[in-house]
């Protein structure tokens, strides 16, 4: 049984969509179920996804030049890897624009700590329960979130010196 099938079996109500391409499996789940699914992936001995390879976000505002309108503006994307089974799994969680918040995974994978700070810094998505959610790349004086699609590409916020 693949990890995808196991999640489908256990969390059938929480799954929005799944797909698989040449052994790379993707699951899109409801944000409320993230913690339970993540815990299941990490702590089930046969799955044993002990490595959080990547955690990032996507802003779907103006997606495909505005032709495709997604229900939720953001998606947080998790890439898990099991060193034991040499297996990967991609997990996506849609996040609404009005309340961009999702549970932190830093208690399960400590590496999520800095990834989540980066996502907060660049996209302004909050992680509930994060021990130290502050900017990691930009300075504290920076206003807004630089990788949001509605952040003006020519907006500059220098700490010292003139606008340029």
């Amino acid at each position, binding site marked *: 049984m693949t990890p995808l099938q196991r999640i489908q079996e256990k969390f059938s109500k929480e799954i929005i969509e799944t797909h698989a391409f040449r052994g790379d499996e993707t699951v899109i789940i409801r944000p409320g179920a993230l913690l339970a699914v993540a815990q299941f992936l990490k702590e089930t001995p046969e799955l044993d996804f002990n490595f959080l390879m990547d955690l990032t976000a996507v802003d779907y505002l103006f997606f495909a030049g505005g032709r495709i309108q997604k229900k939720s503006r953001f998606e947080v994307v998790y890439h898990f890897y099991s060193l034991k089974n040499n297996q990967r799994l991609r997990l996506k969680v849609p996040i609404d624009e009005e309340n961009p918040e999702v549970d932190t995974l830093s208690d399960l994978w400590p590496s999520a700590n800095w990834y989540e700070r980066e996502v907060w810094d660049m996209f302004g998505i909050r992680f509930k329960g994060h021990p130290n959610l502050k900017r990691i*790349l930009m300075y504290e004086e920076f206003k807004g979130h630089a990788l949001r699609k509605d952040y*003006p*590409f020519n*907006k*500059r*916020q220098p700490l*010292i*010196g*003139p606008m*340029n």
Partner: protein
Amino acid sequence: MSSASNFFTSKLSDTLGWARKYSIFQYPFVTACCGMEYMSTAAGHYDVDRFGAGFPRFSPRQSDVLFVVGTISHKMAPVLKTVYDQMCEPKWVVAFGVCTCTGGFYDNYSTVMGIDTIIPVDIYIPGCPPRPENVIDGLMKLQDKIQRGEQSRTLYDPRTKTGRPAHVQQGYTIAQHIKDIESAT
């Protein structure tokens, strides 16, 4: 020059310039990929020590020339300014690579578009990264400048597209800075 009575006559400033240009204590402010080319210039093959500049000091108090090697982000800019302010006079600044000269191919929220908006620059060495020959060419031009006793005192102001005296920068307050941001966006 030498006369029959074996006296050496020259201007003091010439002698000082001559001494200074062959004992450049450099401060390498290396932040990015240009650092590789800086290292190859400094290493044996191109041997920047031939020009008396082979002695990097990692304290701004002890150095004469600030080599800014690599992209400077807005987060790094106050650090660069502090390092420059800590250097003792006389001091010179070399902008190494296009990122330090103009921002290079960066045009985004994080990159300073030329360090000459923050600190006065004496020599610009363009290139992405510049070849060691190019760096040595810039270094020799800097030596000429040191010999002449010249130092850059102007900053580039992108709003007026002109230079302005560096001391104006010192009075540049946070309040003015916030006003600038708001008027530009």
